[in-house]
């Protein structure tokens, strides 16, 4: 017994439609006899048989679509004995076969689409090489301001960052995966500052602090349109007064020269309150309290700017005590969170190291940073006379969104005035 199946008449043929049988049961067929006409995609074609024998059973009916390989008829061959339709010879039409082949379990169809994770609000553009460099040097790309097209970060941006920020060469720090911190979060936090000091591992602490600084500074440079003003201050009066004041005090209670500066800033901010406060949500928010953040460098690198709360209300001695206290607690790790977050303005003094002029980077969302350089004896002309005076360069970096240069100038002028009358400080 032989099965006559739908032949494949071309590589692209999947099925054919039976047009007619050219034989009927009982007919004798020999090899290469045409036995049926099949309609394919191309045309109607007579199909041949490759067996010799007698047509036993016709299974396919004209008009039926039949898949290639499906049985169309049974032929009793010389070798065959009785008419016996094999069980497997039940004909399935093509649509049935195709349906079986292509059936998809119902549950698959119901599979839900994977939920799309919320995308970052703003994607950082960074060159692949810069990304690799940043990973190698554990630099958080979100802290870097790119100088490429559309602010894209390039390798030089990463190199510049690592060259300035890293004060000590990193000791084989393994590449750290870049944290995907949503940008929105840092904006809502109030004044950024160094992270909590409760960290145990110094390295982790440093890395985390570094990142915090980096994030804040990058954001500052990215978002804040800084303007800078500077003014040479004649420190003669202040220093002279301070010298005499200190003579009245025991050595441990002596007031450092920076204290009158802080007080002067505080008072000047009372005069020009626009520089004291925040820029948040596109809005200038002036703070009533003058909480003066004072930058303290850490021995292991990095810095913290804890706040001297209500600095304008404190006398010089109170300020001196507050500063001492802050420095000790900063370096030993005992700062309170309000001190970490409440600064409304920042003062940085790099004069101890001989820096003449400081161009500061504002701590967002604050709107001003006052920098002090080294007090140096310099020629100073006054009333047509040339003299030598202790001169200090005071600078203001201010957020142009919040204030204009005029306001800034008023501030420096006020600062100068207060410092010229030290007894009122």
């Amino acid at each position, binding site marked *: 017994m032989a099965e006559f199946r739908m*032949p*494949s*008449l*071309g590589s692209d043929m999947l099925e054919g439609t039976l047009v007619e049988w050219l034989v009927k049961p009982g007919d004798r067929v020999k090899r*290469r006899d045409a036995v049926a006409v099949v309609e394919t995609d*191309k045309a109607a*074609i007579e199909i041949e048989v490759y067996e010799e024998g007698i047509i036993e059973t016709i299974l396919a009916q004209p008009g039926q679509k039949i898949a290639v*390989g499906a049985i169309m008829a049974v032929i009793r061959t010389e070798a065959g004995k009785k008419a016996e339709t094999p069980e497997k010879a039940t004909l399935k039409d093509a649509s049935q076969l195709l349906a079986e082949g292509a059936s998809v379990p119902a549950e698959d169809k119901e599979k839900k689409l994977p939920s799309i994770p919320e995308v970052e609000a703003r994607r950082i553009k960074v060159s692949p090489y810069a990304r690799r460099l940043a990973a190698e040097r554990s630099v958080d790309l979100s802290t870097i301001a790119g100088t490429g097209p559309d602010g894209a970060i390039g390798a030089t941006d990463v190199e510049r960052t690592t060259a300035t920020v890293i004060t000590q060469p990193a000791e084989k720090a393994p590449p750290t995966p870049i944290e995907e911190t949503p940008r929105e979060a840092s904006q809502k936090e109030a004044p950024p500052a160094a992270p909590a000091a409760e960290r145990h591992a110094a390295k982790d602490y440093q890395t985390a602090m570094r990142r915090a600084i980096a994030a804040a500074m990058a954001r500052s440079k990215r978002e804040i349109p800084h303007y800078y003003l500077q003014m040479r201050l004649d420190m003669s009066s202040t220093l002279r007064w301070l010298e005499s004041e200190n003579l009245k005090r025991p050595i441990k209670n002596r007031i450092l020269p920076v204290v009158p500066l802080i007080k002067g800033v505080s008072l000047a901010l009372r005069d020009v309150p626009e520089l004291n406060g925040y820029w948040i949500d596109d809005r200038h928010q002036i703070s009533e309290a003058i909480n003066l953040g004072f930058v303290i460098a850490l021995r292991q690198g990095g810095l913290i700017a804890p706040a001297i709360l209500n600095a304008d209300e404190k006398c010089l001695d109170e300020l001196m005590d507050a500063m001492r206290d802050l420095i000790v607690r900063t370096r030993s790790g005992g700062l309170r969170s309000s001190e970490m977050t409440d600064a409304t303005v920042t003062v940085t003094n790099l004069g101890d190291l001989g820096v003449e002029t400081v161009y500061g980077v504002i701590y967002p969302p604050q709107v001003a940073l006052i920098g002090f350089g080294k007090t140096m004896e310099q020629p100073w002309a006054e009333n047509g006379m040339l003299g030598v005076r202790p001169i200090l360069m005071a600078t203001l970096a201010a957020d142009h969104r919040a204030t204009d240069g005029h306001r800034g100038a008023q501030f420096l002028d006020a600062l100068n005035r207060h410092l010229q009358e030290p007894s009122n400080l």
Partner: protein
Amino acid sequence: MKTKNTGKKKAAATNHNHAVHLLRSMIRIRRLEDKCAELYTTTKIRGFMHLYDGEEAIAVGVLEALTQDDAIVATYREHGHALIRGLSAGSILAEMYGKQEGCSRGRGGSMHLFDDKLRFYGGNAIVGGGLPIAVGLALADKMQQKKRVTCCFFGDGAVAEGEFHESMNLAALWKLPVLFVCENNLYAMGTALKYSQSNMDLAGKAASYDVASVAVDGMDVLAVEAAAQKATEVIRFKGEPFFLECQTYRFRAHSMYDAELYRTKAEVDEWKKRCPIATFTQRLKNEGLLSDADLEKIEGDVAQEINEAVAFAEACTWEPLEDLTRFVYSERRMS
């Protein structure tokens, strides 16, 4: 081809053994093609497949006139040429199965059968594409003073190609030993010669290039053999090309199956009456050169050959996928 033929034989079936040999050769082709068709319908063979049914007398007759030193360039309808040239039916079928023991490692399939030792330069599946190659093979022979013939088969469709005309001109111009065999089966796929040629005298076209040319009945193996013998004698003696037009007919569709809308059943039936195997069989019987026993023996032998070939192809193996990109560039340097 097993018999070396020096070209001295007369074009008459006076020799019983030779006559039976010719008939056997044609039957071998027919049965191989028959098996190919069957294997195609069962999807053992895929791709394009062009069968030679009806044209067997040409491959058999022409190859009788060639020696094993001569070269052959064939078309994509070349199963018969390959088989008669000496490629085993097994290696041919294995090739069509896509098996690595196939004559072209399964890289070529039905249209690209090759054999280097038999100087069988392949089925070329671009119509007309093999002619310039045949010219070049002959040029190499001439430059190396090798007295060999390059035999190039092509169909009537190729005559319309520029490569036909360029090759005729080059071969005549440079006096190259090429036997051009045009298998004129009247149809280029489905376009009849009368719809593709302004002048249907194909031998005349070759003659216009000063190529000696002859047209012969391609359904008559003895006529083809005689003409080919004469042609190769001319080529070997004069060192110039020869054009042999063999007028024939293919009994099957162009490639495996087509609806044959371009010709009538009556026309096919008419040509089938001239089947080169049937007519030659009858002639031999009439001349008393073939007995029923002879024929039975031939069919039996051939059936066995084909069955063994199928079994071989079935047993052959697939080339491992790691070898996919082999044979793009040579793996050995040349001298």
